[in-house]
């Protein structure tokens, strides 16, 4: 069996690894370089703390297990993927926020998430002492997402996959009513199946192959400080983050996510805004992100930011990844729509897609991620604004 994977980001890489290890002949195509899009523009969050009970949380919990199990594969032959089980600390700064945070944690515990209310200053001595509640999530972890992507691709290559960079999908190859490959800028590439894992660009790739998929970019911006002595030990974010992740609002929303990296810099996120593929970095966004971060850690006021970068999250209207076959075009598969959680969800996404494609029993419920699920079905027709 031969499978064409479109997209050399973390989701495409995880799928390529999964399929190649199962003996499938895999070719990965990317119109640019590997790990050059969304996968290189995030923080590398492996979070369960921001997810309520449901299909996405199940996928995340399964993913964390898979992340741990694949570490030995990438331990020796690669720069470290900087996997760190540092734990997340979610902080409320108002009384109402504290009550909502506690209620959310109670719900999460019923679904297998460890969440303990703690004294925030025990975990983060430099945290704003005026906070109203702090919940510690020991399962939250972090990787360096670009290195993790390259590491997964390297494993796939070791199992026979090929990765072709600078090759752009232009249209479908069809045999009867079936997709039999893709026409590309580098010639025709045939396959028994084509998996589109092009992140926020998946909608465009799907359209070129003849189907509509409601994936849109949701802009994010991150600030990077100069190196400093480590004063932030966990992934620390304000409780507003959960609300921003689940929001449908296209307007700018910011919530603070602050953490140290292995390199000694501090990453500060994050903003969410739907405005197409607009790459501009704007002062109003940077200011809003900075102001939220200072609420958590006032000492950061004197710390210099040396870099800002932005990226595009793959957003779908019902906030769930799309993983599985496209019933409208046999031979076409999707794996996208992970929004800001693609790094953590990549491993179980790869496994689930492999399960479905190879006829194995899925280890997580697949229906919730189906292309034609009820909450996504109304969006599968071309919308007037496109």
């Amino acid at each position, binding site marked *: 069996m031969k499978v064409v994977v479109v997209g050399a980001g973390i989701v495409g890489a995880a799928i390529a690894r999964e399929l190649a290890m199962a003996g499938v002949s895999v070719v990965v195509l990317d119109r640019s370089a590997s790990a050059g899009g969304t996968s290189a523009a995030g923080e590398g969050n492996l979070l369960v703390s921001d997810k309520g009970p449901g299909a996405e949380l199940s996928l995340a919990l399964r993913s964390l297990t898979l992340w741990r199990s694949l570490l030995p594969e990438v331990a020796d032959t690669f720069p470290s993927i900087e996997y760190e089980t540092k734990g997340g600390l979610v902080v409320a700064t108002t009384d109402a926020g504290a009550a909502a945070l506690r209620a959310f944690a109670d719900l999460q515990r019923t679904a297998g998430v460890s969440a303990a209310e703690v004294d925030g200053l025990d975990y983060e001595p430099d945290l704003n002492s005026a906070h109203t509640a702090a919940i510690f999530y020991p399962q939250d972890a972090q990787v360096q997402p670009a290195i993790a992507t390259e590491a997964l691709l390297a494993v796939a290559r070791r199992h026979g996959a090929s990765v072709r*960079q600078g090759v752009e999908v232009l249209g479908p190859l069809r045999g009867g009513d079936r997709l039999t490959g893709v026409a590309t800028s580098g010639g025709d590439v045939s396959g028994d199946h084509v998996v589109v894992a092009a992140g926020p660009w998946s909608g465009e790739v799907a359209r070129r192959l003849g189907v509509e998929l409601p994936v849109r970019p949701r802009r994010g911006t991150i600030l990077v400080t100069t190196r400093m002595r480590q004063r932030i030990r966990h992934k620390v974010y304000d409780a507003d983050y959960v609300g921003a992740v689940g929001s449908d609002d296209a307007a700018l929303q910011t919530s603070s996510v602050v953490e140290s990296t292995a390199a000694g810099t501090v990453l500060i996120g994050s903003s969410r805004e739907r405005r197409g593929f607009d790459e501009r*970095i704007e*002062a109003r966004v940077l200011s809003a992100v900075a102001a939220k971060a200072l609420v958590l850690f006032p000492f950061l006021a004197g710390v210099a*930011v*040396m870099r800002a970068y932005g990226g595009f999250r793959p957003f779908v209207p019902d906030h769930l990844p799309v993983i599985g076959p496209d019933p409208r075009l046999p031979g076409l598969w999707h794996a996208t729509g992970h929004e800001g959680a693609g790094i953590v969800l990549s491993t179980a996404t790869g496994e689930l897609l492999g399960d479905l494609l190879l006829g194995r029993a899925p280890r997580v419920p697949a229906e919730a991620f189906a292309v034609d699920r009820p909450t996504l079905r109304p969006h599968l027709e071309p919308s007037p604004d496109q």
Partner: protein
Amino acid sequence: MSAETPDVLVVGAGPAGLAAADAARRAGARVVLLDAAGDAGGQYWRHLPASRPAAAERVLHHGWDRFAALRGQEVLTDAQVWLAERHDDRPPTLHVLVGPADGSDRVRRTFAPTTLVLATGAYERTLPFPGWDLPGVFTAGAAQALAKAERIAVGRRVVVAGAGPFLLPVAASLVRTGAQVLGVLEANGWRRLARAWSARPAELLSTRHKAGELAGYVRDLARHRIPYRTGTAVVAAHGTDRVTSVTVARLDADWAPVMGSERRVPADAVCVSHGFVPRTELAVSAGCRLTRDGGVRTDENGLTSVPGVYAAGEITGIGGADLALAEGVVAGLAAAAAADPAGGGISAGQRRDRTVNQRFAARLEAAHGIRPGWVGWLADDTVICRCEEVTAGDLRAGAAATGSRGLRSLKLSTRAGLGVCQGRVCGRTVEDLLNRHTGGLLDAGRTETRPLAAFVRLGELAAGADKEEPA
């Protein structure tokens, strides 16, 4: 935050920016000229602060009289442009912090000019070699700055090496500070230098004062018995705590070291320069297109690909101060005319001045441009990115392990260029080396993409949080 709206905003008060602002002012435009430094003059007219002037500035600086005439303008100093917000159909909105960079009370200002002249100059380009991170190794620009602005010599026995005419004034400045210059080593051979500099001699006539300037430096060298060696380079520096000697080798026409030509020379300082890189981050943020050489693409008026945005000086390609002045005049007049079409135009003489000096810049590149053989003097453990201590071997291993053809990905996996200089020192070199190791990067040029053009404290950013409106 309400934005200020001058007719012409000029960023950078070196020769190009001073000339542009002066020309625009004479044409009647309302001009704001700003510079990140505490005083006007740029890198070229670097001088002692006005509070302790030197008697001999005119002797130490070429074109000092021209500077003296231009420096009387109002300049907004200590003004760091940290962000340019692109608008595509007009100049970007510039966000500026005004005040000493180490001070705690910088003032935020925002400019939405009718036209913008970018005159941000260039960074020095220094190719790495084994031992270049030892104390005692200076960029020629740093040595020149110490000599010009502080009257400090970098060492007693100094070797000056690299490529380009800039090596000559550096050697001259060192001599004036009392250092013994053991030699000036130019990487290019006589054959290439002669071919570039002797072609179309009539063209050179109009820039003969510049040729004369260079000849003056050469006479200086001869008077002090300083050898000028071509086809030669410092390929290693040695020492434990600091430089005690260097290895000098002959180079072939592609700058590859000639085996067996190496010899050790005792020295306590090395000054190296291999040219300059246009400082384009603001231009890139503004949406300006670049040339293949990495300069900002302009038309004959200095207009970039973005309406209302002009560029002048080294940012458009490396050509020296005379070209910068000529480009500044033209861009300043064009910007003023675009902001107020009723104003005056550009004279034929002003245009000719610009063209003539551009031909000089082309010669400079033909004679002194970097050749690929230099990688032959690298060792695996030679540090390429000094901020993050990434070696030549790390870059090769990173490319081999990942198979990536992406500069972004390879920077993230090797950490090259991610440190405090943000690739300003090593970016071009990292890109060149990775281009070799990957068979061609697919996202080349990203090195110049730095949305944040200067460091900003989080407190300074946050202070604008409630006042910002979408531009």
